[in-house]
């Protein structure tokens, strides 16, 4: 009866979903928050009290300003509302100040700015068209997409428990994607340029945007067989795009260039002094590399190939981020990671250039860029997996193959976020929310594509099921064993290595499906 009522309500189901998830976010206000909470409080204080010239030099707190200027202006705007809640949070010296009003204000600001994300999801739902018109609202691709995006488990726990402002940033990204799908290229480019100056992590997907805009907007026509028509190059479009990018950058970086602070800003934004991996290894290629190195070390010591005294004592999963050297395999420098990332992006970018398939091709390239940068980047945080998961949701409700890859990537990606919430009261919350989201995504995508072959083969299903014993071991069994004192990093190691396998597999599978699809299209055209 609830379903019938929802179907009769037209678009009211979207409102119900948005309202429901907002209520859930309100209930999560008293939950655990990480040091990111203090980070943002500090930035509120810095931008409120100090003049512009001091923003990127202030270092009273260890959490210095390391986001681009637009985000600093955003914190400045927030600080003017904050002073009505609790003026003491705006004092820079009040390190770790956490009154109830502070917690309420900051949490509520995240919930409020998520309005942009909700709007962007609505726009994306408009771009998605299902093949068959489903009678029941609950089976429509737009409904499933709305749930997968609005109630995304990763976004919920990263934004509303761990505390970050990813909601509205992803809203900007999804909105720019939607605008590009609607062929409103200039708006899409503007939104992305603004987004870049809010959080520079989105530079991971900038190649996709650049190549797509160049190919589909600057060259306005294609030849009969789909290849590039060099004559159709439009100087007007290029100029407009260039103007937008320059204008946005000038607005953001201009004041700092005038003050001559650009090198300082750049050094704050890209702190390469941090190590290859975060304290908890993100589940990317380097996690597997590190694990291999450790395994070979132990093997080498046991077989007396290596001298135990020469091995450095630095622990790779220690609490602080430190540089370390690999023992057996060659050490990795930032330049090496950049080259690896660049090489891994190239095939998808070439595909986008030589055979653009409109917005869908663009989305595929975007996801691949995000995933490749996640796989090979320097000092990647595991939260960056969301950069790949959210755009992939758009693809997953349209094709069965993408849905299968999405299920693998999402489940392992979300599982790898578990170590972010390590406090006991959050354990039931994170497990229940994860179960809710995973069960829904599996059942809805399976029922959406029930006429095609199964989404996952038996190997993938076994891999995903093994996550449950892994979780039980890490959370329940391991703390009760005597090894907890000597090897406290074992659960983190196991989680990140196991998830790295899943993420790598999803990445490879997506790449292969994109490349083989292009090749088959080309063969069909010929």
């Amino acid at each position, binding site marked *: 009866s*609830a379903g019938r009522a929802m179907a009769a309500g037209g678009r009211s189901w979207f409102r119900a979903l948005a309202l429901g998830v907002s*209520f859930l976010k*309100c209930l999560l*206000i008293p939950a655990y928050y990480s040091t990111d909470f203090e980070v943002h409080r500090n930035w509120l204080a810095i931008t409120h009290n100090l003049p512009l010239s001091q923003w990127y030099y202030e270092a009273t707190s260890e959490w210095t300003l390391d986001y681009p200027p637009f985000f600093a202006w955003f914190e400045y705007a927030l600080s003017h509302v904050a002073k009505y809640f609790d003026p003491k949070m705006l004092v820079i010296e009040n390190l770790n100040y956490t009154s109830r009003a502070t917690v309420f204000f900051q949490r509520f600001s995240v919930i409020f700015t998520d309005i942009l994300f909700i709007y962007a999801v609505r726009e994306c739902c408009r771009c998605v068209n299902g093949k068959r018109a489903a009678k029941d609202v609950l089976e429509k691709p737009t409904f499933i997409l709305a749930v997968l995006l609005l109630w995304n488990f990763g976004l919920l726990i990263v934004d509303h428990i761990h505390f970050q402002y990813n909601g509205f940033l992803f809203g900007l990204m999804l909105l720019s994607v939607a605008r590009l799908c609607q062929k409103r290229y200039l708006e899409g480019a503007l939104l992305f340029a603004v987004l870049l100056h809010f959080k520079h992590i989105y530079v991971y997907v900038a190649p996709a945007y650049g190549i797509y805009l160049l190919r589909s907007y600057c060259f306005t026509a294609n030849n009969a067989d789909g290849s590039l028509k060099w004559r159709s190059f439009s100087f007007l479009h290029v100029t407009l795009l260039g103007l937008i990018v320059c204008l946005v950058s000038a607005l953001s970086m201009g004041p700092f260039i005038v003050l001559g602070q650009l090198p300082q800003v750049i050094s704050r934004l890209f702190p390469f002094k941090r190590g290859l991996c975060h304290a908890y290894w993100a589940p990317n290629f380097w996690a597997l590399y590190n694990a291999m190195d450790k395994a070979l070390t132990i093997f080498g010591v046991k077989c007396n190939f290596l001298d135990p005294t020469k091995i450095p004592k630095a622990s790779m999963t220690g609490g602080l981020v430190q540089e370390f050297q690999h023992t057996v395999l060659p050490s990795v420098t930032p330049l090496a990671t950049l080259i690896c990332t660049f090489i891994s992006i190239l095939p998808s970018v070439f595909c986008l250039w030589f055979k653009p398939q409109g917005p869908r091709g663009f989305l595929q390239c975007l996801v691949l860029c995000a995933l490749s940068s996640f796989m090979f980047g320097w000092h990647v945080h595991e939260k960056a997996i969301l950069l790949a998961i959210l755009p992939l949701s758009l693809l997953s409700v349209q094709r069965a193959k993408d849905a299968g890859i999405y299920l693998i990537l999402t489940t392992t990606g979300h599982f790898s976020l578990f170590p972010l919430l390590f406090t006991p009261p959050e354990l039931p919350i994170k497990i229940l929310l994860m179960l809710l989201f995973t069960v829904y995504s599996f059942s809805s995508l399976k029922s959406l594509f029930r006429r095609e072959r199964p989404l996952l083969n038996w190997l993938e299903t076994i891999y995903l099921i093994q996550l449950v014993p892994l979780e039980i071991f890490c959370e329940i069994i391991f703390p009760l064993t005597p090894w907890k004192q000597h090897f406290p990093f074992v659960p983190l190691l196991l989680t990140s290595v196991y998830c790295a396998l899943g993420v790598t597999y999803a990445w490879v599978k997506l790449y292969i499906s994109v490349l083989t699809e292009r090749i088959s299209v080309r063969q069909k055209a010929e």
Partner: protein
Amino acid sequence: ALCILLYPGLILIDHGHFHLGFALWGVLCLSYDWDLLGSVAFCLALNYKQMELYHSLSFFCYLLGKCFKKGLKGKGLVLLTKIAGTVVVSFAVCWLPFCTDMEQIMQVLRRLFPIDRGLFEACMFSSPPPYCKLANIWCSLSVLIKIKNIVSPQTQLKLSFVVTFLSLLPTCIKLTVQPSLRGFKFALVSCALSFFLFSFQVHEKSILLVSVPVCLIINEIPFMATWFLLVSTFSMLPLLLKDGLLLAYAVTMLAFLSVCVASFSIFEKTSAEDLQLKPFSLSLKGYVSWFKSFPKIVRSLFLLSLTLMGVLSLMSAAVHPPQRLPDLFPVSVSIISCLHFLLFLVYFNVVILWDSKNSRSQKKIS
């Protein structure tokens, strides 16, 4: 089902609700005509928590009525003996360890029903003057007249007993004479509500004993049920504030209201027919002429009551009470809730008492 699960009262008051679970099993069994199983379930509920006595009268009258309907000679008598036997056996099983001697049993009973304490010692007291902060009729009256000073504890007990009994009588008689499942569910609500309003030693959480049966009939009268469930959670506000659950209270109330509005579209269903008041309005048609705008009146009353509850919740949380009246907000909450509950009691009784006439007349027509 979603609405029942989202009922704020149950979510916010985490308690051992096993007795409610057993009672619900009892109702479920009775709805399938498995009378014996239902009786066993209810006895277990009763022996888990004596608060279940609120519901006991409804169960008793309904089963008795069923036996009468089947004829007192023959099938009915057989059923009666079977049920009586089951009840005795269940009680015996539960009470076995205590049946060593009479004194044990008396001590248990004395602990279960602390009659010596007086009408409202159990509810939350602060410093004198002892204003009771419970949505009970005696507590609300004690604001105006000090019953404690007028009558002795024994008389208080007898008074409350008599008033409770009188308020229960119409419904119980009706249920015994005409047992129907629908009437049974409504009777659960009205009996429990009578007990809550008029008996002694009532705790605020006992309102849950009334709310859970209301959840069962939410399908039949969505509007009134939603209204009642909101008021019942509101009546527990002082307790929730003490536990620091203000945010959870606000969010769950809003969520519950939204879900009910969305799934049942309660604002459209406020006519006399939807409120099951058709037979009553038919008999009143000669006397009262304003029944035409009945839905609008009901809707505006609901919105008024919602605003009142919202304002009072806000004030209880944000504003400090004046020095002379430190208990202003809890007492206002309880008085307003009590008024609402009295109106609901009248409403539920009206629905039960006028219910069968309609079905009888319908049977006559068909």
